[in-house]
């Protein structure tokens, strides 16, 4: 009976890693589509997003099965509840990545992109998502806390991008493109928040303490 339980926990772990990897793929495909104008990657991001949704449902039902059939306590219960919370954040990351890919369709080959410090923001965000998944995979508390700290940096970058865009609109650049870029920057900022949430849930499942609670 316990063996079965451990097997299911292990399966949950593996599924979460896979879902995290899909998130990384979705966001890096979306970023590439944005920065390099690679249209084929838009479809990659959208496909990853669909797969992420499917994974969310799978993991959710696995968690429910574990909760109902095994009635876990203490650490195991924490792991499963953290998993349930994490998949909603991951699912949001997937959604926003595919939204970014969607927007890139409208601003293809627009020179404004290269003048806005979006690439730095994108790199930092991808780094945060990767680190948050890594902290989960390696059960690394230090890394999780580092991700949580990094969130402020992303917020700062968002403000920088915003200021630059305001300046550009003032200069007479296309307002529509600037708005699109602002949306993208906001999405990156949100993805950073979700990565931060994931890191917080990793911290919770490891220590039983949640930063916000």
């Amino acid at each position, binding site marked *: 009976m316990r063996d079965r339980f451990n097997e299911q926990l292990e399966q949950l772990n*593996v599924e979460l*890693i*896979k879902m995290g*990897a899909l998130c*990384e*793929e979705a966001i890096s495909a979306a970023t590439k589509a944005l920065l390099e104008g690679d249209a084929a990657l838009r479809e990659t991001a959208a496909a990853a997003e669909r797969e992420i949704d499917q994974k969310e449902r799978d993991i959710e039902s696995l968690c429910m099965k574990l909760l109902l059939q095994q009635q876990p306590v203490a650490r195991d219960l924490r792991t499963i509840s953290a998993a349930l919370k994490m998949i909603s954040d991951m699912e949001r990351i997937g959604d926003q990545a595919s939204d970014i890919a969607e927007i890139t369709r409208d601003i293809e080959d627009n020179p404004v992109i290269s003048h806005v410090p979006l690439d730095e923001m994108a790199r930092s965000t991808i780094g945060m998502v990767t680190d948050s*998944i890594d902290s989960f*995979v*390696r059960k690394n508390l230090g890394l999780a806390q580092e991700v949580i700290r990094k969130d402020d940096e992303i917020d700062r970058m968002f403000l920088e991008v915003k200021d630059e865009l305001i300046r550009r609109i003032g200069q007479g650049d296309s307002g529509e493109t600037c708005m699109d870029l602002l949306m993208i920057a906001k999405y990156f900022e949100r993805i950073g928040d979700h990565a931060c949430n994931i890191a917080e849930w990793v911290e919770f499942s490891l220590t039983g303490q949640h930063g916000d609670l």
Partner: protein
Amino acid sequence: MTAKLFRNSTAVAVSVMVLSIALFMGMLYQYFSDQLMGELETETWLVAQGVELNGMDYLTGLNTENRVTWVAQDGTVLYDSQADAGSMENHADREEIRQALTDESGTARRYSSTLAQQTLYAARRLNDGTVIRVASAQQTVVTLLLSMIQPILIILALALIISAVLASRMAKRIIRPIVNLDLEHPEDCDTYEELTPLLSRIKHQNDTIQQQVLQLQQKQQEFAALTENMSEGFLLMDRHGHVLSYNNGALRQLGAQAPQGEVNALVLNRSESFRQAVDEVLSGKRSQQMLHLNGRYCQLLANPVMQGEEQMGAVMVLLDVTEQEQREDLRREFTANVSHELKTPLTSISGIAEIMQSGMVKAEDVQGFAGDIYKEAQRLIALVEDIIRLSQLDEGAVNMEREDVDLYQLSLEVTKRLESAAQKHDVTIKTMGRSVQVHGIRRVLDEMIYNLCDNAIKYNRKGGTVAVTVGPVENGVEVSVEDNGIGIPAEDQSRVFERFYRVDKSHSKDISGTGLGLSIVKHGAALHDGQIQLKSTPGKGTTVTLLLPQA
């Protein structure tokens, strides 16, 4: 053990008891019975004497446990101490009576199954012919035993208790040294001598085990040395995807940290192709994937490990194929370039020839078209010659005769040859320095300096200069070709020595060239154990320095 000992000692106790009871019963019963008979005969004699003297009065006054019967000569009972004489049957046919009547005395034993006892009879004939008989009951063996049942049971119980206590004590005493055996050093144990064979066997086994452990450790070390020192990554997992074994190469190539405890393979890497390889191989299929990670290419070969029909796990081998991939890229680029470079002049030639064939060319223009054809053909020849020379350098097939060459003289010759070309580009070229000797292949050295100077002239601007400086340096000689031309952008500097690499991607015809010049310089330098240094600032100029070992 205790139970066994208990059973054994109980069995001994019980059997000893049964045997001794049987012995005593068998021996003593007969003895007692004879004794009783003797007593009975004496008593009969006494009673007979009494009756002789006092008749019936003696009998009625007699007080005895035994039954006394007085029988008349014809067998009728005259008196019986325990029954009414009148009602008793005739006793004449009784064995002891008959004996007494004939022999004066007689005895008999009779067994009464109803009373489960044996009765002893003794009879004596009186002087008047009547017979006195005294009978005494003797208990049989069975009844005797039955009467002894209580003490026997008590003794039996005692025997059981004593056996139990002794058995448990004995077992403890036997077991204690065995339990306390120091299995590592059996020979040092203080035990009883019956254990010695066991101890020597344990010692022997210890030696064998130790030897096997040593062998195993050695094997393991060999295996670890083997896997750790190979540059290929190696990963072994069970059928659930848990990592069983890995080497540092695998961690390095997967960009993973050493995992803590038993982990799933996906903890090491979760990229798409790795996931796919793990999924495929765990479902029993062979898988081959290319992993692109941190700018490096890693080829992933995964094979399921089968035992019969059942999959036991999977082996994964990771090969770093970055260089192969890059070389493959270069080769593709080279092929594309070479075909392009060869096709361009041919297309021109073919086009011009076609126009001439159609007769659309006026007679006076033929010379001009022929000149174009000649120029393109020359370009083609130069290209093919360069390619041939490069491949000769590649294969070392070039005439390898080395001689002492004065680089300064050689540079002077080269610059002289290029004088006219330089004038055409409005570039001044000069040679400075002093005479230095190297031991090398004149033809190759000539070509190297020629190519460098040729480039310096071609990629210059109007009114520019090319300065060739020859001289000795710390550990060899140096030829540096400096120009103040257009320069090479930083991102192209590392690639200009590649075949057909042109900074100007349009392969423009404004500057003629095959794209092989610097490649030939590079190969030539390698042939002379020399080095090339490139310093360039776009817009300011380029300095290429050739370092060669002194003769």
